[in-house]
């Protein structure tokens, strides 16, 4: 099965793919695209769009107004000019008139909002907010805590209580997340692992579809160009298929290694310092597992794509028949990308242990949570068995299919091919 002829086929595939413009372009473009996507996502997540917020904070008593002025004046969003806040003191009637006078400004959004803090707020913390968009979380989050602590301060002023106690009272809780792993110690966790998990899943998905489609096209092309008959006068179909799959497989592995090189460098050197939020706890053995798993998956799917390519003699027919194979890539992909919201979901666990699904979901699971070693070994064995099974099936179909041109074969004919001898 593996000899100089297979090697010659493999070398040709490598030369053709590795040095093709598409390959070089894709190898460079994909990481760029991903950085853009991630950058965009981060931007959307952090961008609050609350520059140019203008607020009027009206209090019923001078005492409260002074306190508010004091609390707000050193806040960064006030200092950098994003928020412009006016402080006024009015009683309830005056406030009613005032609100009427600024109604138009509120509607035109020249004024973002008006906060009214009555004297009674010192008893019941009821504060009123008037705005065109009264449910704007961004603004609420910024001012809520500050008003609260100002009110708490006033309430306890002149009472026998220490400033330390007041500080405690006015502080809300702050969640810090830590990842518990089997290894000793706990690590502070940022978004890092989620990002890495997403990136790896995406690369896996993209690479399988990209290289698989390339493989299918190349098999169909050899049929339509009639090269296959010349080739078969020198090699047997299995040698040809193995050579093509290995050639494309190695191309894919090289591409993936290039894509992962920044990650490997971050892990194994200290040339880069990541922002605290992006620190991830992925280690080199995981990357090695990922590459191994990727190669097994790639060979498996290349076998399937080659098989479908061999059945048809034109791209359209092959494209329209490839969807079951596509599903085998897409369903696990969706499971894998939804993993961060619930890493321990039983669906994810099951999919990570079944043929085809395991190829994408297991690495994603491993990057997010701790997976027992036995499950990883089990998944690897399943994947290897699947790979050999697919190979056996693909070889049988390929052998007959590549010489069939003309009429589009029916599925029961294809099943008949499996029974051909020799």
């Amino acid at each position: 099965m593996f000899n100089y002829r297979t090697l010659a086929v493999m070398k040709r595939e490598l030369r053709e793919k590795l040095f093709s413009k598409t390959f070089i372009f894709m190898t460079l473009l994909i990481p760029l695209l991903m950085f853009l996507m991630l950058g965009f996502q981060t931007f959307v997540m952090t961008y609050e769009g609350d520059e140019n917020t203008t607020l009027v904070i009206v209090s019923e008593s001078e005492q409260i107004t002074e306190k508010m002025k004091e609390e707000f004046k050193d806040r960064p969003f006030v200092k950098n000019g994003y928020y412009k806040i006016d402080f006024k003191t009015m009683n309830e009637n005056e406030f009613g008139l005032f609100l009427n006078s600024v109604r138009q400004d509120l509607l035109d959004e020249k004024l973002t909002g008006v906060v009214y803090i009555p004297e009674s707020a010192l008893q019941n913390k009821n504060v009123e907010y008037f705005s065109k968009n009264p449910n704007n979380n961004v603004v609420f989050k910024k001012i809520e805590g500050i008003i609260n602590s100002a009110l708490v301060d006033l309430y306890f002023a002149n009472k026998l209580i220490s400033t330390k106690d007041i500080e405690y009272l006015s502080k809300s809780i702050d969640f810090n997340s830590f990842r518990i792993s089997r290894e000793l110690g706990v690590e502070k966790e940022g978004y890092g692992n989620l990002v890495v998990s997403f990136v790896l899943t995406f690369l896996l998905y993209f690479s399988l579809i990209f290289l698989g489609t390339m493989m299918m096209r190349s098999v169909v092309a050899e049929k339509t160009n009639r090269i296959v008959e010349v080739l078969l006068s020198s090699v047997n179909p299995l040698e040809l298929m193995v050579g093509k799959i290995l050639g494309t497989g190695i191309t894919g592995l090289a591409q993936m290694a290039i894509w992962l090189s920044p990650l490997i460098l971050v892990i194994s050197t200290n040339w880069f310092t990541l922002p605290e939020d992006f620190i991830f706890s992925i280690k080199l053995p995981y990357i090695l597992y990922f590459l191994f798993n990727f190669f097994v998956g790639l060979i498996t799917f290349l076998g399937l794509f080659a098989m479908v390519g061999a059945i048809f003699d034109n791209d359209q027919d092959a494209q329209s028949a490839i969807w079951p194979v596509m599903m085998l890539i897409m369903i696990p992909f969706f499971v894998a990308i939804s993993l961060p919201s619930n890493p321990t979901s039983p669906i994810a666990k099951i999919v990570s242990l079944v043929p085809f699904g395991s190829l994408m979901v297991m690495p994603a699971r491993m990057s997010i949570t701790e997976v027992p070693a036995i499950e990883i070994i089990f998944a690897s064995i399943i994947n290897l068995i699947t790979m050999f099974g697919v190979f056996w099936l693909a070889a049988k179909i390929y052998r007959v299919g590549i010489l069939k041109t003309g009429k589009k074969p029916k599925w029961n004919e294809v099943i008949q091919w499996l029974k051909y001898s020799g």
Partner: protein
Amino acid sequence: MYALEVKNLTKTFDGLTAVDNASFNVPEGSIFGLIGRNGAGKTTTIRMMMGIYVPDNGEVILRGTKVGQEFKNRVGYLPEERGLYKKMKVMETLLYFAELKGKKGKEIEKKAEEYLEKFDLADRKQSKIEDLSKGNQQKVQFIATILHDPEFIILDEPFSGLDPINTNLLVNIISEKKQQGKVIILSTHLMDFAERLCDHIAMIDHGKIILNGQLDEIKQRFGKRNINLIYEGDISFIHQLPFIEKITDFGNSTGIKVTEDSKIQELLKLLIENNVTIKKFDANDITLHEIFIELAGQEENNGGLHHV
């Protein structure tokens, strides 16, 4: 001594028997013609000989042992439907096909250069296949067929789509290879070419071998009572002669079959008496075309059988 013995090959596709119990022998050092109209089973037979198709029944013996990879390594095959990688360069293509046969290195590269020179393609060796004309692509494919110096050269309809100059070039190379002691098997529906080139033939029709053996012997066997005539004038009167069995018009010559050997001289006499100018009167000569029609019937109009 036979180089190849084809024994009882049979192949059925979806209930249709493409090749039916075909047996023939290919002698050492011969140019062997597998002839028959399109769809007769020539390509299927060749594919089975090459091991591309697995026969339902029968076998092919190469000098005493069943053919396998060993045979593939020693054969150069030009399929009827030509194909090359369009994006590959000429030299790259040639070296790749040689490598598949286990031949590589400087030696082969030099030989490739020589052939390219011979076929007037020396300046195109770095061109992509898709940038070549169709004729030049065929030449490249032919070089790829013979570059690894195969002992057996199998050419399936080698002349289809070739212009006269390239046809001559190919004919010359085939003769040259025969002189080097190679075995050449060519399949064709062009009886003229087969007659000019081959010394052994097998005639196939509807999947069955209907005739095979040495071409000279076959012609002798079928040639009795046959005349090949080239003339000027009007010979329509001979249609009325009682001893004329059949007249076949080949355009530049005419084949005439008489009922008895002894009538040949009488025919010559009558032709002269009727003022027909005789340029060639070849008794006991028959064309392969006539033999084919005699054996396979008058289906040449729809079978694609025609003369060049």
